[in-house]
């Protein structure tokens, strides 16, 4: 593994090529989300595959899911080859490739073919912010047993799955092993990880922004459920819950998670959404910070303050600040990608699930 001349490469040092890639990604997302007819010719290219898998011609979401999966698989192979000496990297890359292909792409499309409600079984509320939307609940109720199972599974993941798994393994079990956004960040985004901001200021902004969005998502969902159960469209008689829902979907779901989340890879690194936006990451992070066996252990006094770990941390954690003090790293944002340990030239860092302390 080496990252030689990554800061001289115009694609990976915020150079002209990076700007170009970023702009193209942003334009692509805007067209895909709001003007799909303008790229119908592109979307139609995936018709044969769509017909084969779900028996219908491709729509914009099939097209998106398909290229998203191809991107993760292709860049996943690059990732495996780049870090071929590190089994942790190989195992977790194969894991995200698997979850994307089967859980995010194939299973939902097959469900559609069987006329069952859509569900990505590994997506968890509140990242899956539409989980409690009326039409989703209604569709599932209408589908009978399997629909009820889907609802129960979603609630189970949120209430039991997240805290239990995070207690034992840290939030990495999700963010860098399972999640689709994480999967894209870890594969397509890997060449851009060094562009995340490590300053203390960025960390401050991060905390406001990510917990703010967590609160927003919970309030929005509360409102939506209130309307669902009471059939009252206005919360406290003033705020229209449909409107909050629309705003959330537009600002957070589309612009932040999609356009900014991916389009900004070459500008602010590959985890902009996960770090500043994702409400599920916020929830996982709280569990990780206060109740988890997971930490990055620091090997006593071995650190030479070189800065490789901080530079290549995609979440913008100043790992070195802890390592040079000999202090283990327990941070809400750490997604456990393990790259700090990989790039450290002195073997200072190791991801560990400590049994008891």
């Amino acid at each position, binding site marked *: 593994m080496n990252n*030689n001349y990554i*800061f001289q490469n115009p694609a990976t040092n915020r150079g002209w090529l990076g700007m170009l890639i970023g702009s193209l990604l942003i334009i692509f997302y805007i067209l895909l989300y709001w003007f799909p007819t303008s790229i119908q010719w592109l979307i139609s290219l995936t018709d044969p595959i769509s017909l084969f898998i779900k028996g219908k011609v491709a729509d914009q979401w099939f097209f998106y899911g398909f290229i998203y999966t191809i991107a993760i698989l292709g860049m996943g192979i690059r990732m495996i080859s780049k870090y071929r000496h590190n089994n942790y990297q190989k*195992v977790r890359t194969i894991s995200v490739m698997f979850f994307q292909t089967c859980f995010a792409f194939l299973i939902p499309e097959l469900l559609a073919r069987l006329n069952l409600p859509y569900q990505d079984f590994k997506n968890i509320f509140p990242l899956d912010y539409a989980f409690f939307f009326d039409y989703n609940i209604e569709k599932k109720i209408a589908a009978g047993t399997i629909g009820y199972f889907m609802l129960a599974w979603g609630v189970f993941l949120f209430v039991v799955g997240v805290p239990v798994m995070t207690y034992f393994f840290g939030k990495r079990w999700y963010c860098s092993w399972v999640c689709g956004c994480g999967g894209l960040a870890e594969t397509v985004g890997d060449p851009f990880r060094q562009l995340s901001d490590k300053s203390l200021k960025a960390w401050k902004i991060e905390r406001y922004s990510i917990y703010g969005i967590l609160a927003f998502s919970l309030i929005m969902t509360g409102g939506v459920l209130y309307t669902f159960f009471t059939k009252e469209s206005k919360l406290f008689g003033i705020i229209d819950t449909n409107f909050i829902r629309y705003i959330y979907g537009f600002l957070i779901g589309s612009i932040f998670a999609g356009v900014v989340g991916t389009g900004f890879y070459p500008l602010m690194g590959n985890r902009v959404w996960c770090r500043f936006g994702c409400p599920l990451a916020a929830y996982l992070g709280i569990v990780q910070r206060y109740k988890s066996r997971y930490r990055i252990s620091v090997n006593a*006094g071995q650190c030479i*303050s*070189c800065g490789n770990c*901080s530079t290549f941390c995609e979440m913008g954690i100043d790992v070195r600040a802890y390592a040079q003090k000999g202090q283990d790293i327990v941070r809400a944002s750490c997604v456990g990608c393990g790259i700090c340990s990989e790039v450290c030239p002195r073997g200072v860092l190791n991801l560990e699930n400590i049994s008891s302390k």
Partner: protein
Amino acid sequence: MKHIVIVGNGIAGITAARHIRKLSDYKITVISSESKYFFSRTALMYVYMGQMKYEHIKPYEDWFWEKNRIELKYDKVESINIQRKNLQLTKELLQYDKLILATGSNYNTLPNINPEIKGVQGLYHLQDLEKLEENTKNINKAVIVGGGLIGVELAEMLISRNIEVTFLIRENTFWGNVLPIEEANIVTQHLKKMGIGVLINTELKEIYTSINQRVVSILTSKEEKIACEFVGLTIGVSPNIDLVKNTSIESQKGILVNEYLETNEPDIYAIGDCVEHKNPLSGRKAIEQIWYSGKLMGETVAKSICGSPTKYKPDIFYNSAKFFEIEYQVYGKITQNLSANEQTFYWKNTENNKCLRINYEAESNSIIGIHALGIRLRQAICEKWIRDKCTIQYVLEHLEEANFNPEFSKPFINAMLEKYNQEYPENPILIKKKKSITNLISKIFN
């Protein structure tokens, strides 16, 4: 309020400043002529290799110093007036109450080599890195003199730019005055695999230049002529004692200090690379030019200055390095040749890129040193074993506790224990075959 002045903003000087700030309210000034802000010298290679930028190798953000009321001066100290307690900088005079000298090292040159020749240099300061950029622009061939830690880093830097490198090594093997022969062979072989020409038992005799004073080739002590456009001098570093040379502060190779890191002059201390200990602790060198020692001296001197006089007492020796892809760690005492009452147990893998050595006392069996190549060990555990004089059997039985390799790494311990049991069948060590998902996964991946 007392004014503490520190000359040198390397790891030693900066650690002292930070700890004095933690312990006191004194006024602190740190002076350096190399850079305004502290940077990690050990990371210079990564800047050359484009893996990081200069800003990344600064361990603290620039606002840190003002916030902690540590004044930084980017200036050169020309001389010290010990009687008047002041320093002459290029344009001002600075008064001190206590002075800490942390002036670091300079790289060694060869007496028979003219330092004015273009394309000949060592690597220590930031300015050397800038010069290296100039000197290695568009060149194809380089010779590096001296096989040590900085030499191998320089080789890696040049190789990353596809410059052909030939190493001239005085000893039989790479770092032959430190590494036991087996480890040295592993490293030497690895260097060759990386495409480096290694000439052993060879020194630099002469450098030939073009009319404009640029290197064109060299002559080795074996009368071999090698064409090259660059000569890297990595034959070691020496304490930088320029500032004290013509003063009453005693120095030999380095600035002489006692256990409290005090020089012979009151209120003047010295720490880091520039120091020579008058009475080094047993098993330690008088001059120890390593990062970790500088850091520890900085912490120690801070305590002394802030009212609790503290002796410099390094714990179990440790160090680490990296030879291209192979990481290296040492704990305790491992010498190149065993002394009379020492025994060694050595294991290496078949691929020849991992090894572990444990040295122990012949009679008591208690371990005295551990060496690892390509394996990450847990420092706290290794040190505890050495401090507690654990036996080799105990250590091998508990080796898993010291394993700091990343999850799912290829297991090595059982192979090692099998070798031990073959060598010492009289009291074999029980080999545990663990079954767990993690082990299963790492098996699948190996």
